[in-house]
């Protein structure tokens, strides 16, 4: 009883395989695909429901971020970015217009900035001689301060200072004074104002006198 159905099943299986093989060979897959309305098919898919079923955290955990980053050629990526084009699209004027410059200035502690500025150092870097020689400032000074008496006094005093320096230089040599010497009383000349004993300002005084 049982051997008859088994033989029948085997026969049916062989026939089905042959038939299916022939049918598959006969089907034009390209024509079939063209007949499929993919948009309608996609529209029927519940993407939201599908995404809700996805465990994103788990997916992310499985991603080897370092491996991905290591494979990225950053230099090539940067080269590919057209920075000029990006900058040209930025409306800088609109950004500047949105900045409240007044509020910004109010937040600046000018006193603190001024405290950090070494005004003396700036003044020392100014070439006052060149400024007076090459600008109208010289004429202004000349007209406001020059006079026969002033010129005469400058000349007399310069000669006196020159002779003083001449004598001082020889005295310092005779007394073998070396190193820095105080040039004036402490209240008038800070310690930093000390000059070497051999230093002479005779040349400067000659400049004045000439």
């Amino acid at each position: 009883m049982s051997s008859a159905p088994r033989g029948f099943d085997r026969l049916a299986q062989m026939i089905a395989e042959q038939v299916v093989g022939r049918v598959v060979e006969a089907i034009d897959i390209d024509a079939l695909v063209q007949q499929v309305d993919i948009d309608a098919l996609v529209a029927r898919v519940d993407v939201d429901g599908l995404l809700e079923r996805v465990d994103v955290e788990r997916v992310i955990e499985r991603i080897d971020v370092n491996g991905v980053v290591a494979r990225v050629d950053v230099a090539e990526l940067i080269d590919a970015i057209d920075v000029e084009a990006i900058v040209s699209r930025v409306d800088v004027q609109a950004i500047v217009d949105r900045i409240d410059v007044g509020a910004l200035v109010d937040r600046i502690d000018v006193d603190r900035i001024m405290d950090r500025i070494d005004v003396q150092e700036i003044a020392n870097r100014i070439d006052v001689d060149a400024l007076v020689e090459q600008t109208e400032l010289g004429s202004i000074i000349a007209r406001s301060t020059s006079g026969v008496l002033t010129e005469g006094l400058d000349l007399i005093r310069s000669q006196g200072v020159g002779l003083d320096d001449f004598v001082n230089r020889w005295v310092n040599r005779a007394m073998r004074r070396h190193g820095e010497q105080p040039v004036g009383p402490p209240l008038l000349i800070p310690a930093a104002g000390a000059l070497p004993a051999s230093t002479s300002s005779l040349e400067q005084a000659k400049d004045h006198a000439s």
Partner: protein
Amino acid sequence: MRNPRGSVSRQGNYAGAISRLVAFAADVAIAWATLLFLVGVVSATITFLTGRSIDFRSLHLLAIVVVVVWSLIYFSYQWALSGKTVGMALFGLRVVTAEGGGIRSRQAVTRTLALPFSIAIAGLGLFGIVFRIDHRGWHDRLAGTCVVYDWDARAARLRWLARQHDLAEAGQSRSAQ
């Protein structure tokens, strides 16, 4: 182009012997001239009032007293008032305390009284002005004072440069014409 640090202001530096000597000589001349003028005025007034002329040359003791008192007044009053006499002002000098502050009347008087002693003993008291670093003589040390330059050499240099600038401009305008 000259370095601006090259022209150092001498204001506040210890004044040297030559400037001080010349200023003192100027002061002596001014004091004598003023004294002679005052004596002349007094003599003329007495002659005008009494009709008799007085010959001060015969009054040696009085003359010495007048000279001493006048010198004391001349120097101490001016030093106490501004730290400088007329002669010192001409040469840009000023008397200050050893620390650099303004001197008191007492120091001015002490300095004036001590000055003759510095000069008297063969000028020994003045050697310090030449040989000491702070250029202080006996009278300075007794009064606790020193002498400094009171004029700004840098300002003088700027005035000189300004004059050169003006002269150069004048020369250029002449050549353009």
